[in-house]
C-alpha cells in the first residue's frame, strides 16, 4: 500500500532537518515542528473538501518532486517580466540570490529573509509567521516547515520609501520536477508608505510545484500599494497563501494578476484588525487551454469602521477552469463596516468553466455589504458596433476584452510596472 502523503512529506523534512535549519536562528526552526504537527493534524485537503473542490491539492503534491535544500539556479533576462526597478530582491527556487541585507539611511531594510532572521531577529520575530494561518491551511503550515529563505521588506515607522520594491520569485526546473517553498515578509510600520511589485516567473519543462507564503503587515496609518503578478511558462503548480494584516487607519491597494501557467490555487486572507482601515483588493486572471485558477479570498472585518472592496475579474477559454470564492466575515461588533465584493467573468468557450461563489457571514447589524457575480460571454452587439467602424472581428474582440480587464490593470502600482503589465495582459488576450 502506498504511504500517505503526509507521512512522505514529514519524512522529507525529518531526514533533511539539519540542512533545512542551517543558517537560520533557532526561534525559526522551533516553529517548524509546531507547523509539522499542524500539517499532520490538518492533512492536505482532498477534492472532497468543499473549499478545495476546484483544485486537487493532493494530486499536486503526490507528484514525483525533487526538493533541493540548498540554493541553486540564477536569474535570467527572461525572468524580468516586470522591470527590476528601485529596491530589488531576487529569489530563485526559494533562495535569495544574494545572502545579503541592504539597510538604507532612513532605516529601510530589504533583501534575504534568512539574512534578516539572523541579523535583525528582534524585528523579524515580531512579524514572521504571526500573520500566516498555520492553524487552518495545511499548505501554509507545510510552507512554514520547509521555507528556508525568501524576500524581506521592512519600512520602519514614519518612513516613506522613495522607490518601489521589486521582488522577483523565480521557480525553475531544468533537470528535475521540483517542489520549492518560498516566503515573503513585508512590513510597513506605523505611518510608513511603500509600493511593492512582486513577480512570480519561470517555469521549465520538468514541472514545478511552488508553495509560496506572503505575509504582509501594515501598521497604524500605513499606506501600501502592492501589485503581484504570476506569469510562468509550462506546467507550474502554484499554491499561494497570501496573508495581510492591517492596523488602524492603514490603507492597502492590492492588485493580483494571474496571467497563467498551469494550475494556481490562492488562499488570500485579509484581517482588518484596527478601526478605519481601507482595503482595496483587485484581481484578474486568465485561464486558457487546460489551465486552472482557483482564487479563495477572505476578508475579515474584525473591528468597526473598516472598508473593503474586492473586484476580481476572470477570462476563461479553451477547457480552462476559473473559480472565485469570496468570503466576507463581519465580526459581531464590527459596526459600520462597508464591504463590497464583485466577481465578473467572461467565458469565451463553452468548454471552459467558471465557478463563482460569494459567501457573506455578517454578525453586526449596522453594515453596508454587497456582492455580485456575473459570468457572461463576449458582447456580440459591441463586436458588431466596432466592426461597423472598420475594426476586424479579431481586433474588436481583443479591444473588448482589454476593456473588460482594463479597470483592474489600470490600478497596478507604479507607472512602469503598470505599463508592462498592460502589455503582458494584452499578449495574454491575443492568445485567448
Amino acid at each position, binding site marked *: 500500500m502506498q504511504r500517505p502523503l503526509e507521512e512522505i512529506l514529514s519524512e522529507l523534512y525529518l531526514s533533511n532537518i539539519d540542512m533545512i535549519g542551517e543558517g537560520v536562528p533557532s526561534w525559526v526552526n522551533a516553529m517548524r515542528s509546531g507547523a509539522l504537527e499542524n500539517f499532520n493534524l490538518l492533512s492536505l485537503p482532498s477534492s472532497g473538501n468543499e473549499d478545495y473542490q476546484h483544485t486537487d491539492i493532493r494530486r499536486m503534491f503526490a507528484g514525483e518532486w525533487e526538493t533541493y535544500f540548498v540554493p541553486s539556479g540564477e536569474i535570467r533576462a527572461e525572468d524580468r517580466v516586470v522591470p527590476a526597478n528601485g529596491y530589488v530582491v531576487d529569489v530563485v527556487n526559494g533562495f535569495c540570490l544574494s545572502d545579503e541585507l541592504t539597510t538604507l539611511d532612513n532605516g529601510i531594510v530589504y533583501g534575504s529573509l534568512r539574512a534578516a532572521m539572523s541579523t535583525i531577529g528582534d524585528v523579524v520575530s515580531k512579524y514572521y509567521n504571526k500573520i500566516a494561518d498555520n492553524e487552518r491551511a495545511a499548505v501554509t503550515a507545510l510552507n512554514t516547515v520547509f521555507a528556508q529563505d525568501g524576500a524581506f521588506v521592512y519600512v520602519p515607522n514614519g518612513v516613506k520609501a522613495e522607490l518601489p520594491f521589486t521582488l522577483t520569485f523565480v521557480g525553475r526546473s531544468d533537470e528535475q520536477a521540483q517542489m520549492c517553498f518560498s516566503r515573503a515578509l513585508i512590513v510597513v510600520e506605523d505611518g510608513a508608505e511603500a509600493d511593492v511589485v512582486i513577480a512570480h516567473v519561470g517555469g521549465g519543462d520538468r514541472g514545478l510545484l511552488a508553495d509560496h507564503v506572503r505575509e504582509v503587515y501594515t501598521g497604524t496609518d500605513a499606506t501600501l500599494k502592492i501589485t503581484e503578478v504570476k506569469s510562468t511558462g509550462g506546467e507550474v503548480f502554484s499554491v499561494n497563501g497570501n496573508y495581510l494584516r492591517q492596523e488602524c487607519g492603514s490603507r492597502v491597494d492590492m492588485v493580483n494578476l494571474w496571467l497563467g501557467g498551469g494550475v494556481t490555487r490562492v488562499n488570500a486572507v485579509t484581517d482588518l484588525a484596527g478601526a478605519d482601515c481601507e482595503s482595496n483588493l483587485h484581481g484578474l486572471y486568465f485561464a486558457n487551454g487546460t489551465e486552472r485558477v482557483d482564487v479563495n479570498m477572505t476578508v475579515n472585518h474584525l473591528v468597526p469602521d473598516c472598508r473593503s472592496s474586492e473586484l476580481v475579474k476572470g477570462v476563461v477559454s479553451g477547457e480552462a477552469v476559473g473559480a472565485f470564492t469570496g468570503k466576507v466575515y463581519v465580526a459581531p461588533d464590527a459596526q459600520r463596516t462597508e464591504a463590497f465584493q464583485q466577481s465578473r467573468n467572461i467565458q469565451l468557450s463553452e468548454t471552459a468553466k467558471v465557478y463563482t461563489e460569494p459567501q457573506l457571514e455578517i454578525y453586526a447589524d449596522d453594515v453596508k455589504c454587497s456582492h455580485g457575480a456575473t459570468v457572461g460571454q463576449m*458582447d456580440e*452587439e*459591441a463586436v*458588431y*458596433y*466596432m*466592426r*461597423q*467602424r*472598420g*475594426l*476586424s*472581428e479579431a*481586433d474588436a474582440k481583443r*479591444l*473588448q476584452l*482589454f*476593456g*473588460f*480587464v*482594463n*479597470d483592474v490593470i489600470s490600478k497596478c502600482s507604479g507607472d512602469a510596472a503598470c505599463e508592462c503589465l498592460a502589455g503582458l495582459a494584452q499578449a495574454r488576450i491575443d492568445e485567448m
Partner: protein
Amino acid sequence: MLLEVKNLHCMVDGKPILKGLDFKVGRGEVHAIMGPNGSGKSTFASVLAGNPKYEVTEGEVLYDGVNLLDMSIEDRARAGLFLGFQYPVEIPGVSMANFMRMAVNARREYLGEEPLSAADFLRLMRDKGAVVELDTKLTNRAVNEGFSGGEKKKNEIFQMAMLDPTLAILDETDSGLDIDALRIVANGVTKLKRPDNATIVITHYQRLLDYIVPDFVHVLYQGRIIHTGGKELALVLEEEGYDRIINEYNK
C-alpha cells in the same frame, strides 16, 4: 450610382421583414426614409451594414458597383459605409481615442494610406469634436459608457466626422436630441456633405429635414418602399400621417 438595391428580401429569426425593397442613391444626394414603427427601416440599415442577425434571402445590393452583400462588416465600413446607430452600444473600458485610432487607421489602410501619427490623430479628434461641439471630456471616456441619450447620438456624428464616410446612414439620429443638439448634429451632417458622398437619414420627424434638406423622401412600409417624393413629401406626411399613402398602396 453609389448604391443600388434591387428586390431585397431579408428575414430575422425566420420572420420575413424586408419584402422586395428597391432603392437607389447617387453621389451628392441626400435621401430621407420615413415610415411607421416596425416597418423595417432599421432592418434595412442593418442589412446594408452587414449585421449577421439578418439573413438576406433574395435580391442584390451594389455599392459603388461591387456586391456589398459579399463584403464583411468591416470591409463595408472601410469602404466608406457608415451606420449611425439608433441605439449606440456602450463598450466599457474601451477609450474613445483608442477605438477611433484603430477605426481611422483601418480605413486608411484599406485606402492605401499611412496610419496617422499620434499628433495628427489628436488634432483630428479635436477638429472633428468641434464640428459637433462634443465636449472633449466625452472623447476621453470609454465608448458611450454613461453617455446621455443625446451625447450618444452626438458621438455617432463625431465618429462619422472622424471616418469621413462615402455613404452615411443615420438611423433616427434626431431622436432624443434637444433643440440645440438637433441643430448642432444637423449642421454637422451638412458640413460633412460633399459632391462625392451621400447620406441616408431615417427619421420620424420633418424638423430634422429643415436642416438636412433631402433630395428625396421615401416611405417604407411593410418591408418595401411604397412611395417616393421630394422634400415637400415630409411636410405632407407630418400633416396627414401615413394613412392616405398606405391606403393608396393597398388598392
